[in-house]
């Protein structure tokens, strides 16, 4: 299955979309870019909600739009999971699913029971969307889209409402759906982390135009080049409590404790913490007798040795969040890091970002 999208239209007076995209079937393709770069407009075009003349869309030999024809959105077999999910609040979870399955005309190759099982929705069927958590709503929206029996699924920022635990789960579900039901997906994201976790191909979209597609490892290198020049990274934490005796505030970061000097934070407040990349140290052993303030295990995600210069870049994962460390190439062979290996991250100075 191949998908070809050629789209040229003006979204507003100043902003034009001009893309030529090629997708392979059975793949998860990411459209990566800043918000406002035109990613969502492309999805809307594919779904049939932007009818501008002289555009071209072909999926699997079927022309959905060209100079003379336009297939109405309700007749396209394209699932679209909006960023706002748009669950029908007057219907129960089960009725939401029924809404989709009653309209799917083709022989369903996606079995309802299988979808419910894959996405863990069985005990939620009787509930109404308003009483579901963010992750549950997201799963329901994906399931509903699947049950309309699409040949392609579009996902607009599918993880934006979720905490990092749910993010991991949904990403795994998406992978599983992609492989199990052999449905290609195009998903839009502004987070390089998400793109790296899930996609088989990446199109970077900038100002309504696409760059040539990248394989994940190419994208990672490019992304790392940008982070290499970056001085800092940010992570999401939650404030747990003030430790008055030691004059520190305890934060939780993916179930690990971190300490900052900052005062005046509220309990349970969600904050962004900035770390200077040069302050991140990797150790294979837990430093027991050390003055380091923050120490926690993390998984090595990738090791990128540029084969010149003083530093290699190591990307570490802590659940869905990632950290970047600069390791002197001098010690690379001493550490002999391997992907998926657990190491200890040591950080002394964390800075709480003031704006949140």
């Amino acid at each position, binding site marked *: 299955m191949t998908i070809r999208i050629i789209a040229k239209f003006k979204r507003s007076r100043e902003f034009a979309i001009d893309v030529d995209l090629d997708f392979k079937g059975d793949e998860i393709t990411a459209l990566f870019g800043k918000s406002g770069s035109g990613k969502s407009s492309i999805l809307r075009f594919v779904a049939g*909600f932007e009818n501008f003349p002289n555009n071209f869309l072909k999926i699997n030999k079927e022309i959905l739009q060209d100079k003379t024809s336009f297939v109405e959105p*309700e007749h396209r077999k394209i699932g*679209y999971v909006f960023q706002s999910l*748009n669950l*029908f609040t007057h219907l129960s979870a089960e009725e939401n699913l029924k809404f989709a399955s009653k309209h*799917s005309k083709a022989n369903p190759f996606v079995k309802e029971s299988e979808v419910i099982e894959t996405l863990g929705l069985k005990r939620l069927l009787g509930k109404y*969307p*308003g009483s579901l958590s963010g992750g549950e709503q997201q799963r329901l929206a994906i399931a509903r*889209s699947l049950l309309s029996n699409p040949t392609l699924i579009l996902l607009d920022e599918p993880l934006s409402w979720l905490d990092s635990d749910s993010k991991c789960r949904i990403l795994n579900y998406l992978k599983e759906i992609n492989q199990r039901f052999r449905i290609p997906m195009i998903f839009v994201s502004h987070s390089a982390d998400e793109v790296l976790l899930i996609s088989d191909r990446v199109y970077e979209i900038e100002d309504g135009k696409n760059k040539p597609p990248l394989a994940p490892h190419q994208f990672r290198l490019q992304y790392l080049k940008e982070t290499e020049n970056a001085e800092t990274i940010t992570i999401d934490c939650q404030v747990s409590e003030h430790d008055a005796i030691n004059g520190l505030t305890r934060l939780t970061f993916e179930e690990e404790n971190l300490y900052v000097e900052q005062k005046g934070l509220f309990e349970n407040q969600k904050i962004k913490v900035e770390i200077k990349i040069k302050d991140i140290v990797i150790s294979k052993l837990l430093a027991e007798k050390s003055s380091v303030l923050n120490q926690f295990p993390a998984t090595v995600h990738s090791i990128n040795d540029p084969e010149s210069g003083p530093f290699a870049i190591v990307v570490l994962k802590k659940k869905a969040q990632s950290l970047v460390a600069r390791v002197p190439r001098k010690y690379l062979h001493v550490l002999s890091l391997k992907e998926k290996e657990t190491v200890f991250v040591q950080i002394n100075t964390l800075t709480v970002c003031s704006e949140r």
Partner: protein
Amino acid sequence: MSENDLASLFLTLKLASVTSICLAIIGTPLAWWLSQTNSFWKNIVQPLVALPIVLPPTVIGFYLLIAFSPQNFFGAAWLNSTGVPLAFSFSGLVIGSIIYSLPFYVQPVQVSFQGIQREIIETATNLGAGKIDRFLSLILPLSKKGFLIGFCLSFAHTIGEFGIVLMIGGNIPEETRVISIAIFDQVETLNYERAHFLSGFLLVFSFLILALLYRTDRAWNETSSIK
């Protein structure tokens, strides 16, 4: 209650029911169009729909009376096709009431329609639902509150109609003598006892409609917040 009063009451309820049903048929597409369009014509149609709220009923009645006259196009066309003139007839009252109560139906329904996000409808479209299906299974249930309010208000408003009826309907028993006219009649002839009775009846009846309306509205809000 005398036979005349009963006839007036029955006529009033009949007028209100017919008017509300006609409004549901005419007003719903109009409200939908107003809620969705960005066309130039909205600038004209929207205030036209709202006019009966601000205009004295006598003004509307006066223009309707002129339009109903067989010397004018509309009145003549009606007379030719039905054989009866519009002025001082029940049909004329219905047309007057529809115009008079139009904003009370269209506005709440339009607000409800506007409250449905475009993306919700697009989602239904994406799931394969056609126009009619989207309207029946999505737009209708999501704006049921607007329909209820619009229907009840136009019904209650038609019951309370007086000025227009006086202008275009007159006072013909079982044809145009609605309850508000009957009350006026009783007061004119100093028959305060009958006037009291009919007024009291109308007061309680209107109160009950509104109480039921607000109660249902609250019940729907509660169930949707549980959901």
